[in-house]
């Protein structure tokens, strides 16, 4: 158990392509941090830098106040779960889990005890003598977890560990990993491209885009107050609606006949993008939406439509409300549910 500090961490290849452009973060003891972002955003690279599998080209990474930049992975006292599990195919499940302990010279008795205990926690006791190839995807995943927990490291690193599992198993393992982490209280860094995993598992999230941390915060912060257009679009499903507009002379926003008053003062004439989540719209007098497509999800109904000025909008309604295609649907926004972003920089300006 430990703290992990990232101070201006940078990574570049050949001095020209900068894939990580200065990440700062203090991870407290026992915290579950999720690094989330689209593929190619540098999230795995960042994790591998913490693990010691990639060289750090700038800044510092410290585990428990000890700078580890120059340390080999084995000296960092971390454990990692890989996307493809990376189980040793020629060893039994037991030996896979015992490998790291044997190397560290732990006594036979203690190895046995720790492996058995981990196997019990993860419910893989019946498979201890099997080879990885004789296991299903979910079981391999558990063995990979087991190999990490027997080591009792200072931190767990997860590199998209659930992306090779089917949807149902993924939900189940998501819950189990979270529970296990709570129970063991080990500081964890978890990389994923799945925003649902990110929202449900993380104590805090790092939302990354093109090597930059767009926002660091709790899931609810990130959801309720996205720091940029990118974060707003990336977190939440279906994605937030965006409309391009301009601040009027009186500091308010004109929108399809209605007027919005920003909570903070913004210079008149500025180009802004306003956003609203589909779940923050409901039936009521406000705008008229021409319904173009209706998706029934059971619990919810997603309505895709257009405003009178031709801008597209998605509305999430309760499953009981099913408008007809071609109908005019009156929609209203919830109070204070509008997000305002600078159209040029993409930065958040406030709410309305």
């Amino acid at each position, binding site marked *: 158990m430990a703290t992990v500090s990232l101070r201006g961490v940078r990574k570049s290849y050949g001095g020209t392509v900068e894939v990580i452009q200065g990440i700062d973060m203090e991870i407290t003891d026992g915290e579950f941090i999720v690094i989330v972002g689209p593929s190619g955003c540098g999230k795995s690279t960042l994790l591998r830098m913490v693990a*010691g599998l990639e060289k750090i080209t700038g800044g510092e990474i410290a585990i428990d106040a000890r700078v580890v930049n120059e340390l080999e992975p084995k000296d960092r006292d971390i454990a990692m779960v890989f996307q493809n599990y*990376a189980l040793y195919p020629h060893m039994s499940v037991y030996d896979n889990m015992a*490998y*790291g302990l044997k190397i560290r010279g732990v006594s036979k008795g203690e190895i046995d005890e720790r492996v058995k205990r981990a196997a019990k926690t993860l419910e893989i006791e019946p498979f201890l003598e099997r080879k990885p190839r004789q296991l299903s995807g979910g079981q391999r995943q558990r063995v990979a977890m087991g*190999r990490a927990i027997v080591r009792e490291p200072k931190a767990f690193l997860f590199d998209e560990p659930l992306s090779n599992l089917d949807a149902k198993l993924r939900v189940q393992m998501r819950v189990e990993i979270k529970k296990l982490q709570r129970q063991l209280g080990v500081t964890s860094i978890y990389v994923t491209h799945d925003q649902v995993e990110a929202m449900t598992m993380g104590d805090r999230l790092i939302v990354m885009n093109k090597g930059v941390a767009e926002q660091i915060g709790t899931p609810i912060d990130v959801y309720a107050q996205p720091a940029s257009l990118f974060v707003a679009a990336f977190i939440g499903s279906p994605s937030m609606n965006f409309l391009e507009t301009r601040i009027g002379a009186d500091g308010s926003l004109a929108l399809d006949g209605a007027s919005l008053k920003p909570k903070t003062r913004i210079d008149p004439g500025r180009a802004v993008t306003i956003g609203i989540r589909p779940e923050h719209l409901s039936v009521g007098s406000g705008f008229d939406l021409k319904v173009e497509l209706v998706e029934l999800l059971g619990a919810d109904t997603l309505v895709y439509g257009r405003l009178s000025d031709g801008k597209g909008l998605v509305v999430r309604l309760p499953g009981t409300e099913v408008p007809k295609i071609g109908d005019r649907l009156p929609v209203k926004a919830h109070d204070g549910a509008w997000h305002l972003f600078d159209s040029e920089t993409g930065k958040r300006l406030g709410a309305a």
Partner: protein
Amino acid sequence: MEKRVTFNEKTLPYLLVLPQIAITIAFFFWPSWQAIYQSVLLEDAFGGNTRFVWFDNFAHLFRDPAYYRSAMITAVFSLLVAGLGLSISLLLAVMADRIVRGATAYKAFLVWPYAVAPAVAGVLWGFLFNPAVGIVAWTLRIFGYEFNYVLNGGQALALIVFAAVWSQISYNFLFFLAGLQSIPKSLIEAAAIDGAGPGRRFWTIIFPLLSPTGFFLLVVNVIYAFFGTFGVVDGLTKGGPAKATEILVFKVYNDGFRGQDLGGSAAQSVILMAIVILLTVVQFRFIERKVHY
């Protein structure tokens, strides 16, 4: 369900495999049968008088100390060729696998020797080590080491081992490199995080995962040492000096085509054939099953 293309045509499939079958019969079954047939005959040098002698040729062989000597030389020779050939090429493959820049150039150079026919390799090394004009022998003499494979049996054996290994390394190297590159990188990384240093990673992860390749190459190399090295021996020492480098396959040739003892030579071929069949069976039956993941 496996999807299969089926032909209704009855004769076409046979027609298509006919060339391969014809080649196999003409160059494998027919000579093998001839060898077996010859091995139970006693024939004079001009083929005028042939007699069926049952297993006399074999019995004669097993009483012949020269045959045991040749078998012993072959054992030492193939052990050295396979052992050195495999370990040197594994070392080269591991090093080539670590190189990032210019890897293709290194690999190309390492594969070149394979393009040199064994007989040419024999002549080549024979020239370099020639006691009278060879540059290597000359250099060794400067350092006070008298190298004369024409007179010294031990040195002659060392030289054919050297030449045979040199010819075979490329082949082994290619297989080892392919084997190394098929090991997922994350396995090595997982081992590194588990605390294993480079040496330990090699012996506990990489080496066991390479063992299927290794076993395959072992059999191939032993067979190569038994048969493929004929050209090397013929080009370098012709079995000499004083039969010090007369491996079994060369003795077959010597006894049959120089000594004109066709029956005895054929009997030796049959024994060699049996050894190869045995090795292949071992390869398929035991080893493959044991190291397959």
